[in-house]
């Protein structure tokens, strides 16, 4: 098994090396790597968003284990940061645009399309914050962790704007389809998620007892409100939390 893994790794590495060498003019290499890694980072961010939404909506429950979806969601978030690091870091070696570390880390510091480059910088910081929160969940608490997770939507929108308006490959067919497909998939799952949440609210609203009825219910078998609150909270919580360390 180890041999097979090594073979796969070597094959992939040779592909990467081949592509690198095919970019004959090595002085242009950082520029090509930056553009390609930016696109891969965005594709991974899209994948991570989709997997996260699949966990929260439970839409993939019949297809694959939720723990697997969550595990890949978390792992993809780390890969997003890795490729974002390559995307930004390779620009340091570009002799043409001459980005400095400050340009890459501080929003609005870069001279090249300041607003849209800043969107990318902000997206990177937000993605880093959300990813770091996976390991701080116990410390910050489940509720705060979930609230912090909403920043991933802002990171996605910022990354999308950065890619479309600061990227130099937006007009190319494959890249345009990447953006369109990403928007369609994430928007559809978000709409589904919002529909689920509204449905849960609606059900809770129609079943909410009157004050007199609630008092009676409390006396008989505990609070229905509490029960609704619990079930509603359950439906909004990250379902895989109990399956994670």
């Amino acid at each position, binding site marked *: 098994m180890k041999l097979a893994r090594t073979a796969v790794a070597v094959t*992939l590495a040779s*592909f990467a090396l081949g*592509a690198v060498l095919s970019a004959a003019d090595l002085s242009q290499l950082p520029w090509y790597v930056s553009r390609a890694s930016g*696109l891969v980072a965005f594709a991974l961010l899209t994948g991570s968003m989709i997997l996260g939404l699949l966990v929260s909506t439970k839409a993939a429950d019949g297809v694959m284990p939720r723990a697997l979806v969550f595990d890949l969601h978390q792992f993809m978030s780390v890969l997003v940061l890795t490729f974002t690091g390559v995307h930004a870091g390779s620009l340091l070696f570009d002799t043409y645009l001459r980005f400095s570390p400050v340009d890459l880390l501080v929003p609005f510091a870069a001279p090249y399309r300041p607003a849209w480059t800043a969107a990318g910088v902000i997206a990177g910081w937000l993605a880093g914050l959300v990813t770091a929160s996976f390991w701080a969940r116990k410390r910050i608490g489940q509720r705060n962790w979930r609230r912090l997770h909403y920043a991933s939507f802002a990171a996605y929108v910022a990354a999308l704007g950065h890619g479309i308006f600061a990227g*130099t490959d937006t007009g190319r067919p494959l890249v345009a389809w990447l953006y369109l497909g990403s928007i369609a998939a994430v928007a559809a799952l978000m709409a589904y998620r919002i529909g689920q949440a509204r449905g849960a609210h609606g059900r809770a609203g129609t079943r909410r007892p009157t004050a007199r009825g609630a008092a009676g219910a409390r006396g008989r078998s505990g609070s229905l409100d509490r029960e609704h609150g619990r079930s509603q909270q359950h439906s909004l919580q990250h379902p895989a939390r109990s399956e994670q360390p």
Partner: protein
Amino acid sequence: MAANYPRARALVAGGALLALAIGVDYVHSGGQDAAVSGDPGSTASASTNSPAGAQATQAPAASRARTSRAS
């Protein structure tokens, strides 16, 4: 981070690396296409002697200029 599904993770990581390799080739070939097709931006190669600050603010033109240089 405990790897609960190492094979799935390896698959995703390998796919991402492969995508990077394909992406480098894709953007590289795109540069050649732009230069060959007579993209107006590729004429910006004439401005490659401009100051670095001017280059940096001329984003698409600069990128096309560099691709035309590459070809």
